């Protein structure tokens, strides 16, 4: 497959995952605002932006509704839903011939949906409905992709993009939240605290999954264990890393070249770190550093993928 195409598929997928993450975290935050807890509105907003990895520090305008509107519709703001959907579509448009027609139509519909005047009106009526319909659109796109696209290299690059973005975003979010939630486990569990914890799980659609594994007894360390180390839950970082590993294996398998040890080692290291760690170790050690390390390693894997599959030098390729 053309390197440029692999690159576009990868970013199409990353952007959509990012859009979904923004939409979901915003939705949860807006719901949490309904209960006047200990955290004030502005502080909560800042925490949201930080956990979305906000690079620009959006100015606080005093009105949560207008801020939320910007975070959805401002196409100049790099973590806004619109920016990400635009980015995904632009990438898809450049590889129109690689994805299935059904996928393209799905994404195109999502794009037109978010740009229609109707979307603004719907947002004013019910933020929750508007965000849910975006997330639904993305889920449909992913489902359609899984069932209509050839599961070859292109599809593997889509998986790579989605799960690398997800692992990175989840680690970022946990890093932001852990200060409050895990640094003071002795803090009394008022009703507000419970809502905060459930909110954190909902940011990763993890509430129901958590309850199946641990019952509805919501405890910070178990949440961390679930979101970091669970093997079967698709938003847990360990699951993401396993998927990344299998995607790369498969790309190597279908391609003519052997991956260099660097990539295998890079992923293997992160994979081992999550497979063999226990939550007790992580909590007694420097939790923040552990989470930060995960992000660093995700970045490193991204670079290696680029160096090997996308931006390689001609000399190195001719020598083979």
């Amino acid at each position, binding site marked *: *497959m*053309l390197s440029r195409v*692999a690159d576009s598929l990868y970013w199409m997928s990353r952007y959509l995952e990012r859009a979904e993450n923004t939409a979901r975290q915003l939705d949860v935050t807006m719901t949490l605002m309904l209960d006047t807890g200990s955290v004030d509105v502005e502080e909560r907003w800042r925490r949201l932006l930080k956990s979305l990895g906000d690079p620009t520090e959006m100015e606080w305008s005093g009105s949560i509704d207008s801020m939320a509107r910007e975070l959805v519709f401002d196409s100049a703001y790099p973590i806004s839903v619109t920016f990400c959907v635009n980015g995904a579509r632009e990438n898809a448009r*450049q590889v129109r*011939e690689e994805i299935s027609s059904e996928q393209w139509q799905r994404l195109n*519909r999502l794009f*037109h949906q978010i740009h229609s005047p109707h979307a603004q009106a719907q947002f004013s009526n019910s933020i929750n409905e508007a965000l849910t319909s975006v997330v639904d659109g993305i889920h449909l796109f992913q489902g359609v992709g899984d069932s209509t696209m050839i599961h070859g290299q292109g599809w593997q690059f889509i998986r790579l993009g989605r799960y690398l973005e997800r692992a990175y975003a989840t680690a970022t979010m946990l890093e932001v939240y852990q200060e409050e939630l895990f640094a003071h486990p002795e803090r009394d569990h008022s009703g507000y605290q419970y809502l905060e914890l459930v909110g954190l799980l909902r940011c990763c659609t993890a509430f129901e999954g958590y309850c199946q594994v641990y019952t509805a007894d919501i405890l910070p360390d178990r949440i961390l264990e679930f979101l970091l180390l669970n093997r079967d839950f698709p938003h847990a970082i360990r699951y993401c890393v396993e998927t990344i590993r299998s995607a790369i294996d498969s790309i190597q398998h279908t391609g003519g070249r052997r991956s260099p040890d660097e990539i295998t080692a890079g992923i293997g290291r992160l994979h081992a770190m999550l497979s063999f760690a226990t939550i007790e170790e992580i909590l007694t050690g420097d939790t923040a550093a552990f989470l930060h390390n995960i992000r660093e390693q995700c970045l490193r894997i991204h670079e290696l993928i680029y160096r090997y599959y996308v931006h390689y030098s001609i000399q190195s*390729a001719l020598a083979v």
Partner: protein
Amino acid sequence: MSAGHSMELDSLYGDYPLDHAFDEMREADGTLRPYYRALAENLASLPADELQRRKQAAELSFLNQGITFTVYGRDEGTERIFPYDLLPRLITGAEWDRIELGLTQRITALNLFLRDVYSDAKILADKIIPSELVYSCKHYRRQMRGLQVPRNVYIAVVGSDLLRLNTGEFVVLEDNLRVPSGVSYMLTNRRIMKRTFPQLFQSYGVRPIEHYSQLLLATLRSLAPEGRPEPNIVLLTPGVFNSAYFEHTYLARQMGIDLVEGRDLVTHDNIVYMRTTDGLKRVDVIYRRVDDDFSDPLVFRSDSALGCAGLFNAYRAGNVTVTNAFGTGLADDKAVYAYVPDMIKYYLNEDSILPNVKTFLLSEDKDRQHVLANLDKLVVKAVGESGGYGMLIGPQSSAKQREEFARQIEANPRNYIAQPTLDFSRAPCLIGNRLEPRHVDLRPYVLFGDRINIVPGGLTRVALEKGSLVVNSSQGGGSKDTWVLQ
């Protein structure tokens, strides 16, 4: 079926004047042409709002499939769907057979002309065509001199524009021998029409066109360099900002070949490679949708980043086929066009089956004086332009525009030709809720590999504005499906 009111046949027609232009649907006395009867009756039998409903469904389908083109020079709404008219244009089998013969003859002669000019130039030595005319052509490429192209095919993909005059006869308005576009609209129009009028389509026994992509692939394969039995064929696009980008992706997908941009290609030792996730892969045939000028910065425009450095040398070495060949624009120059009937006579010793439009060459003194005196009656065109740019339509122009053109003609007469303003045929279109006539042309697509193939039909382009004579999509034109009957 809905129980709504059916439209009476007469109430279906809006402003539908019949004058001296040929009407595709009606005879001069107003009666329906026999082969349009079934269509007219079908339309009349539909409930009043049904046509609109189908039109909206079709448009939504275009939008959702991203079947759009890009309009240059506008910031917002740069992506638009190609306006689409719901009613098919019908062409009888006998009419088509003649078109097919005529185009085959014409393309054969044009290809022989290119081969001749870029090798021995006999036609110039025999003074059939003035050599100044050929060598002063903007699209003449001296780099092509003496270069052997595979199977001697210069123009593998051609789209010629035909008009029907008031005699009912088809004439050739121009030949597009560089990178003709629009074929994807022909194919998608058909797919949507089959959904919009399924029974009607079936009852007409329309000849199929869907195998175009397969024929194109076979054509490209037949032109592969020697000794490459399993050629790697790619489509080279200028990229996502090109107005025909949708078409490039569509064709690549239909043929199952890679769509590459210049930045995907590298050359090494006169071999072209593409960058893939598995390393460099050799490229054998390039279906080029990038203009000559932008194809190779080492040979053509050095400021272009769209092409691939070294491509031309690899081509010259015979290691890669690029089609259409470079320099083919020479033969669709609007002044050279005037000599196509002479070429047909010269190379094939035949009379042309499809006539030309009368053309005045402004480099000739007599012609120029006549044209300058009659600017208000003629159409003036720049010879190297396409897409409806650089054109003066006399009867619809202002005195100021005519003055401006007169000045440009005096300054550079070789750059312009003039033709009579043609009253070409009109076909019924759905305007609002009514049928009204609009001017139409026809662009059939010709494929030239080991043999010449023309799928029956082509793109019928419509000047959707009332009274307008310009059908180009960049100038507000639309399209409709073309049904060639058995």
